[in-house]
């Protein structure tokens, strides 16, 4: 491998990229946008869920019950219609998540000790939220007319994320996901573009060797990917103040490895397609979707059926995600996380080798 | 020089008109010019792409536009096609004003771009069908018209492979066929012979000559100076201006030369123009 040739090729790539303001803009802006969207947009805890109360009793007791719900912090009173149908429609439309029906005679039966009937309905569309809301609803109802002061009080310790701040959970995950979103796409598009334009023929005809070609493509896009990583890391840690318990150096170092991995995947994808459109869609299916949906980012892997767990394990995102969360949230170090590093290294080597092999036919 | 040898050594191409279906009847060509441009100009900001061009083209005439890159040939053509509005002056093509009636104009002209804009993923036949329909050829006549256009353009064969697998020369002829399938009165050909081998270029010019003989007015831009001899008249453009217009013989005489190659004429006019500008 001649360093000069490699650098010349990489330099051409860098110039091409820098001329394409649009792509750079997207590459650098999108991680920021996603960071903000995900952190602000996803809260895993349930607060202020819209609640409608149909109070047909209108007694002090019924108002007290209503207050219990609203003051719990889990619910927010959206409306108090008189008509049951109104609440039902609202549930159907998704305008409210829960509805409390207090029939006439509630206070009277409560006073008589008869067990006053009350119906509490939760919209099951979002299973997670529904489970939580119905649990809280039941808890409030069990305790009524007493306060929710339990003889056995739970002391809930949430390890590694004591305030259950969603962002502490999301941001380290985003490190892994964003790097799987753009760099492979950009790289795959770059090679596909050369193929479509025909400039690839010049490369075939040149003395540029396979490894020089691959490395030359890798360098600039890995550079961009690293920039993206830095943007998200700085954004997450500084702006969103996600505390890092472990070694940032370890995170960045393995991040570098991961960056090479994802860019290599992009290269590999590019060997399988002929057009840019196909490259883009293939990248979507092979990198982006698994990264978002099957890596354990939002949806836990452990709940997936066995077959899917295997599928999820076939992508490197999962391993970097675990490492990232481990380092940031749990302060884990190389001693605990070395399997992840080893898997990532092996994965990278394998993908690189396959990509190189696929280029063998045409390039020296 | 090689062109001459290739042409001489090749077997004479089949006469273009043999075995072609009867030409569909066309309305009697008006004797009026098919293109009339007066003082046409086009600016892009401060830059004058076309500067005060006046010319006319008669039916059956082949006008060749020559000039260095950036001289304004393509811009002028695009104005005449109705693709670009002139900043000043007016032009009439096929009797219609290009600025005011550009849509009607389009139905009567054909355009072939330098890139032979064809759909690479469709077959030759499918491209022809598409353009025929786009130009409003009635369904009943599609088949015959396409066969006619293909024959006139010198296309042979089935036409069922995709365009991307065709040779440059075949694509050239296909682009021509697509541009004339609706029997336009005027054909605009922007560098139609670029990237095509000399023999095919020669054949192409014969096709154009045949079209002109049918009464179609043809405007061609080209970089190949020797092709200028195939044109009835030449227009030399430089920096947006028309610095010479007329048959080659007249231009040669205008420079005061007895015999000269096209290149000499070309360079002569450019030199003259430059001198005139320096003096001004």
């Amino acid at each position, binding site marked *: 491998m001649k360093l000069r040739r490699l650098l010349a090729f990489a330099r051409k790539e860098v110039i091409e990229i820098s001329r394409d303001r649009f792509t750079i803009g997207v590459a650098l802006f999108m991680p920021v946008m996603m960071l903000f969207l995900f952190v602000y947009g996803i809260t895993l805890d349930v607060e202020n869920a819209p609640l409608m109360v149909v109070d047909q009793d209108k007694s002090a007791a019924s108002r007290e019950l209503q207050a219990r719900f609203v003051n719990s912090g889990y619910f927010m009173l959206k409306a108090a219609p008189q008509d049951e149908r109104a609440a039902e429609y609202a549930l159907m439309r998704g305008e409210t998540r829960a509805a409390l029906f207090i029939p006439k005679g509630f206070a009277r039966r409560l006073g008589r000790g008869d067990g006053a009937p009350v119906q509490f309905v939760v919209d099951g569309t979002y299973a997670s939220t529904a*489970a939580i809301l119905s649990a809280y609803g039941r808890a409030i109802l069990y305790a009524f007319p007493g306060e929710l002061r339990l003889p056995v009080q739970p002391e809930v310790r949430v390890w590694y994320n004591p305030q259950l701040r969603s962002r502490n959970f999301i941001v380290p995950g985003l490190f892994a996901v964003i790097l799987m979103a753009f760099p492979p796409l950009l790289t795959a598009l770059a090679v596909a573009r050369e193929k479509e334009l025909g400039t690839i023929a010049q490369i075939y005809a040149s003395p540029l060797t396979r490894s020089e070609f691959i490395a030359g493509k890798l360098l600039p896009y890995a550079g961009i990917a690293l920039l993206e990583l830095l943007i998200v890391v700085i954004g997450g840690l500084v702006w969103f103040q996600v505390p890092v318990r472990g070694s940032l150096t370890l995170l960045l170092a393995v991040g570098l490895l991961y960056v090479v991995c994802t860019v290599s995947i992009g290269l590999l994808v590019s060997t399988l397609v002929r057009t840019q459109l196909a490259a883009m869609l293939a990248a979507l299916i092979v990198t982006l979707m698994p990264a978002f949906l099957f890596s354990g980012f939002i949806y836990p892997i452990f709940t997936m059926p066995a077959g899917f767990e295997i599928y999820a394990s076939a992508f490197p995102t999962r391993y970097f995600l675990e490492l990232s969360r481990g380092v940031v949230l749990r302060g884990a170090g190389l001693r605990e996380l070395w399997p992840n590093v080893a898997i990532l290294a092996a994965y990278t080597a394998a993908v690189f080798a396959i990509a190189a092999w696929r280029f063998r036919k045409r390039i020296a | 020089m090689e062109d001459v040898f290739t042409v001489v050594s090749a077997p004479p191409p089949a006469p273009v008109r043999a075995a072609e279906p009867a030409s569909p009847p066309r309305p009697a060509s008006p004797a009026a010019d098919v293109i009339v441009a007066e003082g046409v100009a086009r600016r892009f900001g401060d830059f004058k792409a076309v500067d005060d061009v006046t010319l006319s083209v008669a039916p059956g005439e082949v006008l060749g536009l020559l000039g260095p890159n950036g001289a304004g040939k393509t811009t002028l053509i695009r104005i005449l096609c109705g693709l670009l509005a002139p900043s000043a002056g007016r032009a009439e093509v096929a009797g219609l004003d290009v600025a005011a009636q550009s849509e009607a104009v389009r139905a009567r002209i054909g355009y072939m771009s330098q890139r032979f804009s064809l759909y690479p993923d469709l077959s030759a036949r499918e491209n022809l069908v598409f353009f025929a329909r786009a130009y409003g050829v009635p369904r009943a006549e599609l088949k015959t018209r396409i066969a006619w256009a293909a024959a006139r353009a010198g296309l042979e064969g089935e036409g069922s492979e995709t365009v991307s697998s065709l040779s440059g020369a075949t694509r050239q002829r296909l682009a021509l066929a697509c541009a004339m399938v609706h029997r336009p009165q005027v054909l605009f050909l922007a560098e139609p012979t670029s990237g095509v081998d000399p023999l095919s270029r020669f054949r192409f010019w014969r096709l154009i000559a045949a079209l002109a003989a049918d009464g179609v007015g043809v405007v061609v831009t080209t970089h190949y100076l020797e092709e200028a001899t195939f044109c009835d008249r030449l227009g030399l453009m430089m920096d947006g201006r028309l610095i010479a217009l007329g048959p080659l013989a007249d231009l040669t005489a205008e420079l005061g030369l007895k015999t000269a190659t096209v290149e000499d004429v070309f360079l002569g006019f450019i030199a003259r123009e430059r001198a005139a500008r320096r003096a001004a």
Partner: protein
Amino acid sequence: MLGRLAGLLAKEFAQFLRDPVMLFIVLFLYTAELVMCTLALGFDVQNLKLGVIDHDRSAASRALVQELTTGGNFVLTDQFSSLQQARGRLQRGALDVVVEIPPDLSARLAAGRQASLGVVVDGSNGNVAARARAYVIEILARFAQARAVARPGAPSTSAGVRSEVRVWYNPDLTNTRFMALSMLAQAGLMLGVVLPAAAIVREKQGGTIEQLRVTPIRAHELFIAKVTPTIIICTGAVFPALLIMTLMGVPMRGDVTTLLALTVVYLLSAVSLGTFVGTITETLQQAMLLGFFSLFPLLFLSGTMAPIESMPGWLQTASLASPQRHYVDIVSGLFLKGAGLAELWPHALALVGISTTMFLGGWLLFRRQW
């Protein structure tokens, strides 16, 4: 005009069908992807894996553990003697929650004093943590009520409320159905944006757009030709998707006609975004990047990843402008809730309004460039 339009449509369809990758993608998104996401991401919110450390070993503590494990919220996975022992399993995800009962539980309860229960959740999995906490609170409240009622001499007023808590539309609380519907909406949006954008930019890049402009083809004819195939294909793809969803246990309880009609409206908004992208970009790469990544905010605001009401106010308001949001509400209503147009009309109206505006906008911009 019809002749020209017919020619254009024939060309667009031919080009689409010629590209095997595109065909594969479309099919994939509406079938395999649907199945995959539904099966894998339809996670179970019940049956959290519980580890118990019982330092008290009394009748009371056993009753508590019993209470914790009935009802399906928690599944008793293992008993441990100390938190250290359980730690490893918790970290690995073999356990979701660990409960530590202090040695003085029964003593304090008998004395009428408040006892405490240690609950440890792995917070790096946010989903589990929030749920575990809610379940524990519910179960303890239930435990408290049961003990209060059972205590001899308890005043009768402690009968309290006889409550009936129901979860509508999804009683077994799986994410499967919602995931399937969301993926259907997502596929429609993705294709609706990407396909027309690619179709438009390809003409620009290939130079054929200039050729088209020289023909009598009008701007609106080309526009219609660029968007119609996508709308037809994506609407048609709803049928195999419906079939698959039925096979997976997501029953379609609503009116298919309403679904199709509103799907077309939804796709109108998607293709307008697609034409917008195709109009303002010059190369296929730019079109793909812009088109695809503009889908992200819309995905977010649609409530697919997280319920909209959990977002900050300004995002909630913004989501009202997202066609995907309304479409997801509509299909959830149609499929899960047995709702019809009578109930869903606000969403349908919003969708129509948004789609019309976007479509007009897309068209005007396209015409300007033409």
